[in-house]
């Protein structure tokens, strides 16, 4: 059954769509974002204007956008997939030439009042295109080498553009996000096994070429890996971030130091405390209980995404939801691993909590698409 076969009449129309939204998911997203506002308020020393208020405004705008996207039929978005991906690639090229330098890399495009991070946008549009591709493709051909090569190119193109920015974290997430869609679409596991073996080989060569003129990574990327492997070796230099983050998390203990009582963040020992390392303040002020509760909220979001995907009989919708959910999972898994000292510091924000416009908007666009797929599912 393709989308042409279920009639518009089987799909809710007009305002009744509101009743068919995946409301638990909406509530969960608002709940997680609210935790973010609370922490941003605390980090600013009890001040709304610094971070909490701009973040709330962005969230409000994003939420409106999410609903707008949700009300548009999913088949429209499927038809838009190719165009959206093309625009993303153009923006990624633009960032290469007109981008703003920040954190030692070109990542932003300044368009009037808006600051766009096309690499974030790529995570969504790439998943859209891949889902559309597999919806179109005869499922018997899914694992044939030629038909595997096409989605691989779709993944590699934006990834390559992001890598040269250079932004290792986002490019790795693009790779993994794309792979997740391919995996869900049923591509033979042998391909994944082969890639895994290649990655192992690549990692080995990354380290063996270090120090030679043809080394794979930038020096700062090597240093981040070194620091990750042994943060205490240089606690005031490169290891400072990780060490201080662990101190903040650990010192929270079971129940935390209490709202607005976190000394690590309030006294500025924490780097990037309102962006990538926001989770450490949650851990410091609300302890294990608070941090674990956030993990449960994230788990519930993923749970509702997956149940929505499984209930859906439309191939594009299914793959889209799974791909975007996997992307969401990658955000939080990489960020939490990094903050808790289990992965190198790669600059991945914590979804809905970290201060920042692009990520917030892109996430809400993704959840708008998930909602659209849910509302317009074949019944």
């Amino acid at each position, binding site marked *: *059954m*393709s989308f*042409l*076969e279920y009639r518009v009449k089987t799909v809710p129309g007009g305002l009744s769509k509101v009743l068919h939204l995946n409301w638990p998911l909406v509530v969960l997203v608002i709940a997680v974002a609210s935790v973010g506002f609370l922490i941003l308020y605390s980090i600013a020393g009890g001040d709304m204007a610094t971070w909490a208020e701009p973040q709330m405004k962005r969230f409000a705008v994003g939420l409106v956008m999410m609903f707008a996207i949700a009300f548009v039929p999913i088949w429209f978005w499927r038809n838009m997939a190719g165009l959206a991906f093309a625009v993303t690639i153009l923006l990624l090229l633009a960032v290469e030439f007109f981008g703003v330098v920040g954190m030692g890399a070109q990542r932003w495009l300044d368009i009037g009042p808006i600051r766009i991070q096309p690499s974030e946008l790529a995570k969504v549009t790439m998943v859209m295109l891949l889902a559309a591709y597999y*919806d*179109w493709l005869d*499922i018997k051909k899914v694992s044939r080498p030629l038909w595997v090569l096409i989605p691989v190119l779709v993944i590699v193109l934006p990834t390559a553009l992001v890598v040269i920015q250079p932004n290792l974290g986002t490019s790795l997430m693009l790779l993994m996000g794309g792979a*997740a869609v391919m*995996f*869900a*679409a*049923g591509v033979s596991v042998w391909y994944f096994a082969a890639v895994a073996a290649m990655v192992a080989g690549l990692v080995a060569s990354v380290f063996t070429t270090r120090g030679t003129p043809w080394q794979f990574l930038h020096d700062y990327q090597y240093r981040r890996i070194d620091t990750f492997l042994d943060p205490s070796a240089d606690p005031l230099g490169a290891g400072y971030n990780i060490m*201080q983050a*662990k*101190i*903040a*998390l*650990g*010192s*929270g*203990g*079971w129940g935390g130091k209490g709202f607005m009582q976190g*000394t*690590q963040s309030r*006294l*500025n*020992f924490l780097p990037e405390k309102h962006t990538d390392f926001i989770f450490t303040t949650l*851990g*410091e002020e609300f*302890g*294990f209980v608070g*941090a*674990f509760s956030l*993990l449960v909220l*994230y*788990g519930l979001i*993923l749970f509702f995404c*997956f149940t929505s*995907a*499984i209930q859906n*009989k439309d*191939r594009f919708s*299914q*793959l889209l939801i*799974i791909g975007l959910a*996997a992307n969401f*999972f990658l955000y939080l*898994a990489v960020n*939490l*691993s990094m903050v*808790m*000292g*289990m992965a190198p510091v790669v600059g991945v924000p914590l979804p809905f909590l970290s201060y920042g416009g692009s990520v917030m908007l892109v996430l809400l666009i993704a959840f708008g698409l998930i909602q659209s797929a849910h509302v317009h599912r074949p019944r």
Partner: protein
Amino acid sequence: MRRTAKDTEESARRINRRALLMGGAMVAMFAVLGARMRYLSVEQADEFKLLAEENRINMRLIPPERGLILDRNGALVAGNEQNYSVTMTREGAGDVDAVLARLTRLIPVTAEDMDRITRDLDRNSPFVPIVVADRLAWDDFSKVALNAPTLPGVTPEVGLSRHYPLVEDFSHVVGYVGPVSEKDLAERPDPDPVLRIPEFQIGKIGVERWMEDTLRGTAGNKRIEVNHVGRVMRELERIDGTPGQDVHLTIDADVQNFVQARLGTESAACVVIDVETGEIIACASAPGFDPNLFVRGITQRDYSALMENDHRPLANKTVQGAYPPGSTFKMVTALAALEAGLITPSTTHSCPGYIEFGDRRFHCWKRGGHGRVDLARSLAESCDVYYYEIAQKVGIDKIAEMGRRLGLGIRHDLPMSAITEGIMPDKAWKQERWGQDWRIGDTINASIGQGYVLASPLQLAVMTARIATGRAIVPRLVRAIGGRPVEMPQAEPLGLSSDGLAAVRQGMFEVLNAQRGTAYSSRIADETLVFAGKTGTSQVRNITAAERARGVVSNDQLPWNRRDHALFVGYAPYDKPRYAVSVVVEHGGGGSAVAAPVARDAILRVLHGDIPPLTSYPANQRGRIETDLNALRERLRLSGTATPPATEQQG
């Protein structure tokens, strides 16, 4: 694209299977994240809590206020002066150059200072205060305070720094403080953490150094919360320290000032001591220096000038200087012979001007000799041959023993730097020091305080006090600590026969009061304050036989540093001794002409409690003395400059 129902079913089934696999992987990852969270915030919580506290809390020491040093009457000798300084912070100033430009119009800032200021501002965090000007005059300081509104980021600050109002009078006794050096820290087994405060100062020499622990007090501390760059956010707790204890010296600052001025530019030392209590009333070494220079950090130029001066202003000659005592030593030889029963006061010897011993000839200072002399006359006229004779009978070991009983060759423990032991030689000493046997010629030299014998002015004053009282008085410099008087036990009798002591004192009386006495011109005319003493002239060179044949070159003809040292020891009043005095004038020439008048002025100043009246001096000298005293008066510190604080009065 159209798909068959079968295909659609197959597609959904396959996706669901894969979705479940992915969900399982995610659940596994969540489990890992949760476990890691638990590990960090539950199992390692205590360790991380500690680290977070260490991040946050800093202990800062509050330096204690240093104890004052006062004279016996409570006059301030070393105090803590308000130090006016101006600091600025980069973040407070905003436009640093503009603020500095405005500031330099108000207070003098040299180009050198300017370089340092801009460098310090660049190097430090924006909130760290940088010292722009230190030790400002009150006028300049108040100008800055008045203009504070136009000088953002600039703070006028008041601190404390050590100050010595009496300048060079106490430079040797009290010494000075200075910044803590690596050496200072290394010397202490467990240095007080307060020493690590930047710009903290400790005593370097003299009383400041040797009573450092009393003067310093204990530091207080405060716990402060700091942020990641060390900026102080708030004070959490404060524990006040205890200030250092005040130290009252036995010295009378006015007498000290008089004596220092009296010594003038000579390279000389004078000690005045209370013969009953051993209290040091004056302890002056000339020339002096300004200890305040060292507190501020002495310039290389000033320091070189002090080091290159051949009068050695930095040395404390009263306790560091070891001089051949010359004829002032004759009382020791005489007392040794009297105690041994080898002579009586009436024993006479003939002085032909020299004696011969083996192939050597030992001369008396008087070429023609003194003829027959008894003990009293041998002292009065300082006949050398008399002592050559009796010393041979007594032997060096008995002389040395007597010297030590009188306080020579032993270190008197006082809170001053580099106190010398001097040398009171005997047979064992020479064997140990030189690996040679003692020879009779050594005894003959030692009998008149030449040869190996060395003594400091302090030791000579103690010796004189002991002869004057017959008691083993011990010199003291500290009268009270923290307002509590230091216990001064009564001095034990020396156990010398009173007849022998009386005979020696008679001789010392005649030195000043007999017409033929070597210091007759330095007598005190006031009959209630009769002066007794002994002159000394010690050679710093050998007189060869050839020179003696030609006639000994007089001191005036010699370069300064080849001339004889002039010495004098004495006490007064003769019948009821109160004070003893010793004077050494390096390369001054003769003891009677140079040292004795200084000693007389010093002891009269103490006895009168003021500049001595002319009636104390012999009538024929009064004209000259009046001129001298008037000239001296000009050089004295105006009395009243050092007003003692009301609470510091001592009984």
